[in-house]
């Protein structure tokens, strides 16, 4: 290296800096332009407005569909309790109740008959007229 005197350091720094040359790739400017155009496309107000319209156009029906599903589902479940089905259920209940009452009555009658017979026997054993006991 050529001798660097302390008092010409600043001049040497400037001169040697000029000797350092770097050249960008020949397509550098084009690449910058491409990136700028791509960035402009992303920020294009027209395209963003269209995207907003599409977003609302899809979001609103989707929201409505969700709301309808939520509200209709309980209604569908409640179809089991329609007036016709409720009446049928009541009718079934009536039938079952009557049936149960009849069975209870039959059981009671049979039990009563047993008791009467037992009393009749008891009376006979004691020398009474069993028929009078039963009456």
């Amino acid at each position: 290296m050529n001798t660097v005197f302390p008092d010409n350091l600043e001049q040497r720094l400037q001169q040697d800096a000029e000797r350092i040359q770097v050249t960008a790739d020949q397509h550098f400017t084009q690449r910058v332009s491409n990136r700028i155009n791509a960035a402009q496309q992303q920020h294009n107000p027209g395209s963003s407005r269209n995207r907003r319209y599409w977003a609302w156009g899809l979001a609103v029906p989707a929201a409505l569909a969700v709301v309808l599903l939520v509200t209709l589902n309980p209604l569908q479940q409640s179809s089991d309790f329609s007036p016709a089905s409720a009446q049928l259920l009541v009718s079934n209940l009536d039938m079952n109740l009557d049936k149960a009452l009849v069975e209870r009555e039959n059981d009671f009658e049979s039990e009563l008959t047993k008791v009467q017979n037992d009393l009749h026997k008891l009376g006979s054993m004691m020398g009474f007229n069993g028929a009078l006991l039963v009456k």
Partner: protein
Amino acid sequence: MTREQERDLINRAQAGSVAAYEQIVAHYQDRLLRFLMMRGLQQADAEDAAQSALVSAWENLSGYRSKWQFSTWLYTIARRCAIQRKPLQTNNDELDADTGLDTCLEQQLRDNVWSVAHRQLEPSAFQALWLHYGEGFSGAEVARIMDRTTVWVRVTLHRARSRLRAVFANDNPVVEQHEHSIS
């Protein structure tokens, strides 16, 4: 490109002219690339950082104020892009044979005072020295680019020069004795 020409291009670019901005890009691309490579980026990374800086400058062109030189504003953006890719690291005390610079730059730095500066100075001091003597920015502009105070820049440049003078004086003892005899 004169200042007036540059100002005209910037005004047209701010109005939306990509063609005008392309002329600004062509004017600054080599300088930006050299600054980023001297900062320690390899050429491919430096090109990518330079492109990012120029695209970012385009996107924020409406925020540029003519009270500052456009180059100062652009270099500030470029420095931030470089930091994202490679933060400045403190040099080790021992001389490191590997400069960390791109090989094509290393070849150019042979017999160049900047190779000594790169080895002897802390990265931030080297960057301040380069911006001032290599790129021609004033102390205030260097401070703005590096996000430092002007006092820091003045002190750093002074210390960097002193350090280099000491290195060259030690390397050239005959020259120093001759100067003393003259004075």
